[in-house]
Structures are given as C-alpha cells and as structure tokens.
C-alpha cells in the first residue's frame, strides 16, 4: 500500500469516530433521548455542552442517540442493497442472454425516475416505518449496485483466467466466488462507501422532510427539522445535527476519494 495522504487519514479518523458513536452512542449519553432537562433552546452550559433542543432536551444526548438511528438505518439499507445488487449483477453478467436483458431493462426503467420521487411514491402508499424505509431505499439503491456489479463482472468474465475456469467445467457459484468476487472487490468497496454516503444523506433528507425516521426516535435529519426555527433567532441548535451529518459524509468521501484516486472512470453518480 502506498503512502496514505493526510486527507485520507482525516477521513479514516472521522469514520472511526462515527463508528464508536454508532456502537456506543446511547451508552455515552448523559441523559435519555426523551428526557426534558432544561428550557427550550437554552444555550450551552456545564453538563449540557451543546445546549438544549426545541423541547428542552439535552442536545448532546440526542445527538448520541441519533447516531445509532441515522447511521444504523443507512448501513442496514446499503448492506441489503449490496446483497441484492451484487449477486443479481454477477448472475446477469455470467449468464447473459435473456436473463441479462430482462434484469437490465428493469433496472434501467427504475433508474429513469429520480430516487427521491420513487421513494416518496412508495412512502405515500405504505406510510413511513423503519422496515419500509430500509427495504425501499435498499431496493431502489440496488439498481445502481446491479449496474456496477454487472459491468465489472462482464469485464472479468472475458479474461483468460475466467475462460480457463469455465473450460475446466467450474459451476456458476464457483465462478462467482473464486473468480469474479475477488477481482471485483476494489471497485465494489469504493462503491460501498459512495452508496453509504448517498444513502446516509438520503435518509437524513427524508427525515428532514418529516417522512423518514419518525419520533420519538432521535435522528439527525429529524433533529435539524425540529430545531430549524431556532436559526431565525441566531441560535446554533439546528447546526449541530446538520454538522454531524456533514462530518460523516465528509469522512467517507475523503476515504473514497483516496481509494479512487488515479482512476478516471466516472463512478457512483449520486442519483
């Protein structure tokens, strides 16, 4: 591995920090997420380092609880989306023929509508709950994963070593596991980072619109929405959760940028 640049170190640090918050956030929180311990929009004071939210709840505690919800939902959605997209993408690339054609057409059709619009249509029909949110986003997002997985697998499938394996009589499952997956891993890992970023911003955006994670759960996007009126009085309250969101995406983007450096293909358009 060549020298890791400073920006990537910063990114790795931010990811590590958020991982800790994700795993241990609620344990670190000094107050409960629903506990009213002060006056609405009161400023920072000892013991309440970030002040209070619109209901007088401790901002820091809610941020810590929110980490688990915000990061957890998007992480769940991305993992699910990759476990749908990668197998189907590999399968389509190796099989080819009508399977490939049918899957690719379907994916192109779903992708011809902006994700946000599709998601809003589904949420209108099913209402917003955590499982609906995760599965909807995962399904919509898996179309992008499918496209990349198929493209990468197609490239590998025509290599000599893949040809040799096929001539040896290896089966589909073996091909995917031993030939395609190891060689497709680097672009897919970078894509995972990018998809996570996009999904994370997307979930936070939906919550900000009031259509994502529902109260009483603390969630960063929803917290920005709830505290937004504070900005009109010059208060920083809504900026804390918004900055928390920004730090996560900056961290992931810095690392992904380093991983993709030197490559000139346009990957992971965030639509």
């Amino acid at each position, binding site marked *: 591995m060549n020298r890791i640049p400073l*920006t990537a170190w910063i990114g790795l640090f931010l990811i590590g920090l958020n991982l800790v918050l994700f795993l241990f956030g609620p344990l670190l929180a000094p107050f409960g997420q629903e506990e009213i311990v002060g006056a609405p929009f009161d400023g920072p004071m000892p013991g309440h380092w970030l002040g209070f939210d619109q209901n007088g709840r401790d901002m820091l505690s809610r941020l810590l609880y929110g980490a688990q919800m915000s990061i957890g939902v998007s992480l769940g959605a991305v993992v699910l989306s990759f476990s749908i997209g990668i197998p189907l993408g590999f399968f389509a690339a190796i099989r080819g023929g009508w399977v490939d054609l049918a899957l690719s057409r379907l994916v192109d*059709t*779903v992708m*011809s*509508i*902006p*994700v*946000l*619009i*599709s998601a*809003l*249509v*589904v*949420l*209108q*029909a*099913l*209402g917003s709950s955590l499982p609906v949110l995760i599965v909807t986003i995962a399904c919509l997002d898996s179309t992008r994963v499918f496209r990349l997985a198929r493209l990468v697998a197609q490239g590998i499938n025509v290599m000599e070593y893949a040809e040799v394996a096929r001539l040896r009589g290896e089966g589909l499952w073996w091909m995917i596991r031993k030939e395609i997956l190891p060689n497709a891993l680097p672009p897919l890992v970078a894509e995972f980072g990018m998809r996570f*970023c996009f999904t994370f*911003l997307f979930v*936070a*955006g939906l919550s*900000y*619109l*009031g*259509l994502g994670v529902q109260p009483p759960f603390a969630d960063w996007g929803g917290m*920005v929405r709830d505290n*937004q009126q504070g*900005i*009109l*009085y*010059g208060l920083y309250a*809504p*900026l804390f959760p*918004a*900055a928390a*969101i*920004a730090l996560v*995406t*900056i961290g992931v*983007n*810095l690392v992904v*940028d380093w991983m993709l450096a030197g490559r*000139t*293909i*346009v990957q992971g*358009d*965030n*639509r």
Partner: protein
Amino acid sequence: MTTLILKRLGLGLFTLWLVSVLVFAGTEILPGDVAGAILGQNATPESLAALRTQLGLDEPALMRYLGWLGGITHGDLGQSLANHRPVAELLWPRFWNTMALAAYAGVIAIPLAVSLGILAAARRGRFFDRFANIAALALVSLPEYFLGLLLILGLSVRTGWLPSLADTYEGMGLVDWFRATTLPMLVLVMVTMAQILRMTRTTVLGVMDQPYIETAFLKGLRNGRVVLRHATPNAAAPIVNVVSFNIAYLITGVVLVEAVFNYNGLGRFMVDAVSKRDLPMVQGAAIVFGAAYVLLNMIADIAAIALNPRLRHPRAKGA
C-alpha cells in the same frame, strides 16, 4: 445521425410511458389501502366500501390505469382527496415556480462549473486543482439544509441582507423575486457546481490520457492549447451528460432546498401530499417530476449525439 436521434426520441417516449406505469403501479398496487388511509382510525366497513366505490377502486386495476392515463393526456390529473380541487390547477403554478428556481441556479452554476472543471484539469496536480477538488468534495458532502442554514445565519439573520424565507406570490416584482430566491439559488449553485466541476475534471482528464493528446504535446503545443483545442471538444459529449445529470439533480435537489426556505414549489407540494397521503396529488407530482427528468435526459443525449464529431461526420460507406 438522424436515425440515431429519432431512435432516442422513440426511446424517450417509451420511457415516459414506463414512468406512468411505474407511478401507477407504485401508488395503486402496493398493499397500502387508499380508502383506509383517508378514513384512518374511524373507518367502518360500510364507509370504506362506500369510499372505494366513490374513488372507483372497485374497478380492475387495468381499467383504472387506462382511465388515469387517458386523463393525463388531456391534462386532467384527477382531484385532490383533501380539498376536491383539480390537481392540475394546484400543480402547474408550483411546477413553474420550481422551474424558475432551477433555471436561476442552472444558468449561473453550469457555465461556471464547466469552465472551472476544465481549468482544474488543465492545472492537474497544481494548487488550483487541489483547492478546487477539496472545496468541491466538501460541498458535495454537505447536506443542502446545512448549507441553507449557514447561509440563512450569515446572510440573513446576522446581516439582514436577504430575506430568510423565499416567500413568493403572484404579481411579485422582478427585483423582489430575485431578492427572495437568491438564498435558495446559492445553495443549489454550490451543490451542483461541486458535482459538475468534479465530473468535468474527471472527464477531461480521461481524454487527456489518450495517445493523440500525447502527440499534441510532443508536437510542442502549449498546455492551454492542448486542453482547449484537443481535449475539450472530445470531452464535450460526456460533459453534456454530466450537466444533464446535474440538471436532473437540480429538479430533485430542489425538494430539500424548497423545504429549507419554505419556497412554494413542486417539491414541497409533493412532500405535503405524501404526508397527507393524498394519492392523486402524489401521482400528479411524481409523473411531472418523472417526465421532466426523462425529457432532460433525452435532450442531453440528443445534444451529445449532435456534438459527437464521429457521428456528425460519418465515414463514407466502404471507406
């Protein structure tokens, strides 16, 4: 080239139709029950049945789809469930508001971002390139509402230069309109510019790795001339695609920005409709958003075909 363009037009129309199928399927076939959603907790079986008949939910889905599609082609998007007014009447003013805001942002962001992206590619690895890259990466990472809130705090609450909410109304003066929409425009410009800049740079750099660019350098041409005369024209088609991605983004990114600044656009219209679960309003907004997106992508593809030198000057047959 003409056949290619005609093919693309056909594909665009086909996609439009598919969008209508998807929107209909998404709203009607998913297990959510519209009548149940409207009546909520107080639904009795009789009132549910009565409402289903009233909404025409007893008919088979295919008949409803055809009726709905027929209505759309005549500009009839149905009636709002909440206040029984025609959806089209409520929707189009909001749509034009959104388009106005997106156009205001696009006119500023696109030329600026494309030229800065080319400049960054020309100065690959130098200070300007690195600075532009990091700034763009930061802007791409920041959510729209974070930028929006920072701008409200800096340019409105602290200084009072611009209004914090984008209140627009009909018959508003042009100067007032620009004043009201400048903050949301700035947010959209920052976010799209960052995307376009990064992708333009990548595209131009991709062309710069080609052998003919090396030849141009070996001929002794200066860097600026190679980038502008040799690389950029060949990167034009992908750049058009990049721009179209981002115009399409403008259309949906506007949803969040409208929510931040309380702007009366189609995005807020749709979000409100979704939270009220007002089915015809959601369908109308989704189909308009979807159509705008498909049309923009189609226009961009056609422009890319028209800009491709190889397609514009096809080799004579048999050559």
